[in-house]
């Protein structure tokens, strides 16, 4: 991706509930601004072309690949990264279920998976195995073969529902 060197502009938005203002090129990727300007390195880069989901974030509640989002689109947006999930009520149960079920191996896809899982449970609190499979299919994992991730999400859903 080419970034224009001539026209940096001021963009204000909210990240994990905090107001932020950055001076960036409009075509700069949200992924790079999160990692390099705001030091939020929990968001990972896997492919840079919207295939793997390692860079997943929520923008105004919608799950997106931050490698595909130019900063110019983000004025006044509300962004949630994995760092902001700590205050999400579902996070602790997802984290525990991932740990107990073997849902993370190398961990590089995990932030994106957790966001995708939280996003899925937001819309569907009691998903079936196939619905989880489908809901996470935009997030690639090369280590686990997915089954233990799917089991972790099912387990987290069960615990959230039982509380």
């Amino acid at each position: 991706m080419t970034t224009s060197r001539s026209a940096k502009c001021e963009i204000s938005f909210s990240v994990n509930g905090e107001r932020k203002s950055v001076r960036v090129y409009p075509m700069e990727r949200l992924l790079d601004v999160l990692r390099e300007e705001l030091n939020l390195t929990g968001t990972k880069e896997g492919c840079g072309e919207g295939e793997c989901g390692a860079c997943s974030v929520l923008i105004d509640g919608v799950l997106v690949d931050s490698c595909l989002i130019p900063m110019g689109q983000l004025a006044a947006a509300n962004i949630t990264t994995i760092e902001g999930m700590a205050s999400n009520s579902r996070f602790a149960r997802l984290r525990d279920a991932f740990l107990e079920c073997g849902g993370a191996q190398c961990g590089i896809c995990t932030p994106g998976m957790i966001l995708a899982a939280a996003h899925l449970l937001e819309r569907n609190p009691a998903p079936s195995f196939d619905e989880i499979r489908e809901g996470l299919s935009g997030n690639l994992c090369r280590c686990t073969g997915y089954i233990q991730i799917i089991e972790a999400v099912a387990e987290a859903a069960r615990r959230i529902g039982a509380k």
Partner: protein
Amino acid sequence: MLYGATVRSRIPRGRIKKITFGPAVDWREYVVVSAQDIPGKNYIALIEDDQPCLADGAVNHPEEPILLLAHPDRHALPKAVAAIEIEYEALPAIFSIDESERKDQIIWREDNIFKSFLIEKGDVDGVWAKADYIVEGEYFTGAQEQLYIETNGMIAAFEEHKGITVWGSLQCPYYVHKALMALFGLTEDKVRVVQTETGGAFGGKEEYPSMIAAHASLLAMKSGRPVKMIYGRAEDMAATTKRHPSRTRHRTAVSKQGKILGGEIEFVIDGGAYATLSSVVLSRGTIHAGGPYYWPSVRIRTKAVATNVPPHGAFRGFGAPQALFAMERHIEKIARTVNLTSDEVRRRNFLRPGQTTTTEQVIKEPIDLVKLLDRGLELADYQAKRKRFARQNLSSARKSGLGIGAFLHGAGFTGSGERYLSSVVGVEGAADGGVTVLVSSTEFGQGTNTVLCQIAAQALGLPYDDVTIAQPDTSEVPNSGPTVASRTAMVVGNLVASAALGVKQTLIATGKLHQNYTAGEFRAACREFVATRGKLQSLARYESPEGIFWDDQKYRGEAYAAFAWAVYVAEVTADLSTYSVTVNDFVALQEVGRVINPVLARGQIIGGVAQGIGFALYEKVEWRDGRMANSQMTNYIIPTSADMPTIRVFFEELGNQHGAFGAKGIGELPMDGPAPAIVNAIEDALGVPFDSAPLLPEEILSVMTSHAANAESESPAGVR
């Protein structure tokens, strides 16, 4: 900090005539490194000293590194790379095993052959006359990309008095250490390699990190500033290693009863342009080529050959998946020829305790492969489903089938490898009373840290939380060997257990601890020892078990201290409107000694099966003049969660006297079985034999079309 980038060859083979730095870039802003800047020897030290760190006058594969650039703004690098024009005198290049064997072009030393092996057991030449059938087959597997989700990356710093330090995503700190010492002509204390959290590896970060570390270090030395090099996905896929493509030929003498009497196996792998690890990959493929079967006589000839593609390298399984794919396809062909079911032919030929492998290693463990197969088939409901599918397939365009993969995987380094490695492990009692494991073995998702801490805790009778593991840093930890070859839990784990016992014995011998202690007493004893006597560290070095014999010349003897054994059963459906195949159910049954950590072990098996499904059905490298044309996740397809069948994992545990608490290696095992099981299932569903993997819909269509055409021309009267 600066960012680094690599200028690479755009052609597969040729001489570099001229390098022009284009006028559009202000080159004073950039640090530029060429082969002339290398202070030591211009090669990446590994096995052969043939692979340059930077091309010096000639290139032998596309993407070969030629120049390095660094700049404070990483956005300023792509245009600079593009502004460098390299003129070549192109030379004819070769891209396949067949072309390499023809030797029209000699591209590596005298004969294009990196390595060859010969195994001879019994009188093969006398066996053909006794055979009721001679079954021949030829099988192929393609390149496969490791596709760890975190691309390769490294940061290097150089200071005159301290030397080089690199931090990076890697598997084998001491491989990088060795390569940097040779390249810079530095002593071992002037090179420090630190493994940072590594986002997946699968063998793909075994040898190539030495190259990136070398590049980042050269830029750091020349600029005097730290340099960060992170590969983009396309660069990582196109330039770094992949699984070796293979061709295997079987010629087998078989009796009417379906018994293998003897045979010849020829196994050839495409090593790419430089030797890298091909000889070792070939070795493992050679030893696994006979599968889990008893060969009264066999001749196995194997070689790794050179082509003008980026060097192929380590990938989970390391030569075994290729050789076992061929064996497990060929056993199906044998079954068809003698008109028996393939499960029955397997039963009649399985290795039994007391029999010898192709290298004449006596099977000493009480493995019962017939029982393992029967249990696998029962778990898969194999017989009932086969009958049902045979009926259903008659009236449906969706054809279902079942396939078996029976196999073994040797754990640890081959033959005398572990003896040469002579690994050392440390366990330390710390000032706060805790215990630290000191190893260069790395965590990259497979559970090294958890399992080694667990082993130390168990050996000392302490809670898991009392044990930590040091970050792999060559200035802090001993060389426990590379993290490869399914050796970590079994071989390194065993050393961790004995080093841990050393700490306990020291505390007991110095009167600080009784035989029966609590965790609190152990911590207090540690604290007191460190306060009064200083460092409390115990080292353990690998010693090869007695009675292990291996002949490197004749490739004969005890190839591995232990084998893991497995039977996998795949159920597939092939859709004749799209020619796509889905895996519906997968049974993975294996004997792995002892399961140290059930959750992690199951995760290893499922993850390996997923990569095997990719190897069988989706993952195809498209080559264009030696370059990977589909170097993106968009067009190189790996399984997603939506593609995964139910994977049912079962363990048998027979123990292993050579492994920590009876463990055998399991990391690579699950890579071996899925591809043959799935392709066998596709054959069962469609009634057409397939000889290669991966099988994408277009390959299935093409094989079925030519099979139908052949059938028509062979039997014009419609008979048979």
